């Protein structure tokens, strides 16, 4: 079922999570008197991939592409509409409440918003300490000791145990979020845009902290972000999503040096690079991402794709391995080392000759 299962295991990594045909559809209620459920927003539509033990898998895409929904569904913070999620070979979608709570110890999430994700009425000690209490790990003085250790670990002063979230800066609050996620020593963490809300000079501190803790805790990380430079820096492999679909998945260098999907190539060409000396060939995509409630037929990207042909309208391209360890969902993927501009040029020639 899952195309990349075999390819990555050559690096003697075992799968930790296997996501198969995951779908999350949000129904849209019809407006009429009977309020029939008519359509649905296909937020995540038939996505399959594997996350290997110890890796950082980056997930990129524009807003509305379904990357955050995917992260939440994997953790069952939202219930998927269809599909399977295997964690250490057990299908966690079949877990009941009790089993799920046990599982939470191993799977955690770091949220984007360091303001909204911490309860303003709780002290930092309570926010992190709650984790130990809920799971019956520690209470009272022992809990306090553990929390203070966590605070120290994420670079916060343990004496601020009794401080409230508003007394901290954005970067510090994100450290609290990280401490909370790691308090129970999880194996798998979803980091959903963990640095997007932070200022540049603070952002790199938090990225460094995440990389350091990942090593120390032996974490497996699903790193969701729209900042391509950050994802590139931190990830071993990168998945690219577009309108609910996973369109490309490979090792980071493959994705950034020789993308196969025209969308990935265009996305990379438009990142504003913090260096005016680098002159890039910018491919500015026309139009906008269509509504996920009413996606185009065939390939979802075809309405904006400079390479789109008749076939793209009729057939949805599956995610297949086109190069070694490089999966792409495109009927006409770029060849290795080919730029999008070159591909457009050769496509035009091809059309002329027909």
């Amino acid at each position, binding site marked *: 079922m899952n195309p990349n299962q075999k390819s990555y295991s050559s690096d003697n990594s075992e799968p930790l999570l296997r996501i198969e045909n995951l779908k999350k559809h949000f129904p849209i209620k019809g407006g009429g008197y009977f309020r029939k459920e008519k359509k649905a927003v296909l937020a995540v539509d038939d996505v399959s991939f594997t996350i290997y033990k110890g890796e950082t898998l980056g997930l990129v895409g524009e807003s509305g592409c379904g990357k955050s929904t995917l992260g939440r569904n994997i953790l069952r913070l939202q219930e998927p509409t269809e599909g399977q999620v295997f964690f250490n070979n057990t299908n966690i979608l079949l877990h009941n409440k009790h089993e799920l709570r046990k599982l939470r110890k191993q799977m955690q999430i770091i949220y984007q918003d360091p303001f909204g994700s911490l309860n303003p009425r709780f002290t930092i000690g309570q926010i992190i300490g709650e984790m130990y209490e809920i799971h019956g790990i520690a209470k009272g003085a022992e809990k306090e000791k553990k929390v203070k250790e966590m605070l120290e670990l994420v670079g916060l002063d343990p004496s601020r145990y009794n401080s409230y979230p508003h007394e901290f800066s954005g970067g510090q609050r994100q450290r609290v979020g990280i401490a909370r996620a790691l308090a129970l020593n999880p194996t798998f963490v979803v980091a959903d845009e963990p640095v997007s809300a932070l200022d540049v*000079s603070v952002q790199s501190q938090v990225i460094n902290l995440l990389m350091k803790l990942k090593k120390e805790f032996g974490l497996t990380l699903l790193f969701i972000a729209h900042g391509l430079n950050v994802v590139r820096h931190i990830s071993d492999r990168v998945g690219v999503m577009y309108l609910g679909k996973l369109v490309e998945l490979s090792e980071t260098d493959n994705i950034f040096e020789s993308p196969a999907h025209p969308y990935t190539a265009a996305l990379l060409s438009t990142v504003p690079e913090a260096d005016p000396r680098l002159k890039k060939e910018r491919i500015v995509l026309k139009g906008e991402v269509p509504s996920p409630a009413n996606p185009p037929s065939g390939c979802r990207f075809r309405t904006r794709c400079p390479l789109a042909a008749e076939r793209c309208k009729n057939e949805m391209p599956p995610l297949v391995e086109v190069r070694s360890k490089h999966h792409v969902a495109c009927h006409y993927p770029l060849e290795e080392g080919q730029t999008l501009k070159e591909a457009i040029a050769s496509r035009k020639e091809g059309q002329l000759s027909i």
Partner: protein
Amino acid sequence: MDKILEVKSLVTGYQGKDGFVRAVDGVSFDINRGETICIVGESGSGKSVTSMSIMRLVEYENGRIIEGEIKFNGEELTTKNTEEMRRIRGSKISMIFQEPLTALNPVFTIGKQITEAILFHHPISKKEAWQRAEELVRLVGISDPQARLKQYPHELSGGMRQRVMIAIALASEPDLLIADEPTTALDVTIEAQILELLRKLRQERNMSILLITHDIGVAAEMADRIIIMYAGKVMEIAKTKDIFDQPLHPYSKGLLESVPKMNGERGVPLKSIKGSIPSLNEIPSGCRFSPRCPFATDKCHTEEPLLEMRGERQVACWHVDYLIENSLLQIEEEGGVSIES
């Protein structure tokens, strides 16, 4: 050089519970005709308050300009009365904002809002105004203008709304366009479209642009010159190329280095600036960056450096000579250099 805007020793602030807070504290710079200037800074740097001061919009947010001059085409703006300012705003100077949805009126169609802007500044008929609105909407790259003009803001996407804002801003053919984080709320591919549009407009109309951004990448792509602000002060002003070749202020260096590069070595610890941005209530004494600066001395902690000319560039740092002599401001190319103690 033909200067369109001159800002001198501008001090703007807000009355807070614990006294007057200076969000912008002695900022000076100028913009030439046809030039794109980027103010780069993090939150609390005063970059937005600077632009709101030029538009005299701070007054509507309980702010006050308490010192300094703002000369636009040689005319002093700080002494203009409300009515005079209303005439200048949106005619000679236009502004676009980060969140186009809140800047547009939800109960009027796009067409109504654009024609309103046109009619306010031009004595023409409604029909002519509507025609001009169509032209403007087409100019900013919106297809099918006739249908679009009849739509309401909520029916448009973020990118489209920002295009509408730009169309409104252009309605009066301004000499200066102030764009405050115009692409921050947009996706990368849409951001690229808007930046391309701004570049095109600037070229075609010889318009000056003051772009406020926190994204050094955007500044690198758009600016002729860059102004780096920190905690209400200008730290450095230089041509874009110069600043990326070699920043002269330790803060600029730190800022440039902490952004992961698309061609840098992966997985290594990123350079970062220690500590966090001070809040405006507790501005450090001396140089405002000194508590976070790796090169700070006693002098930096007690005496504030002024923004001084250095060739074509300007920088506010006591130790710039020493730092240059000892090559301490060189941007370290990523790769193997990032050993943290």
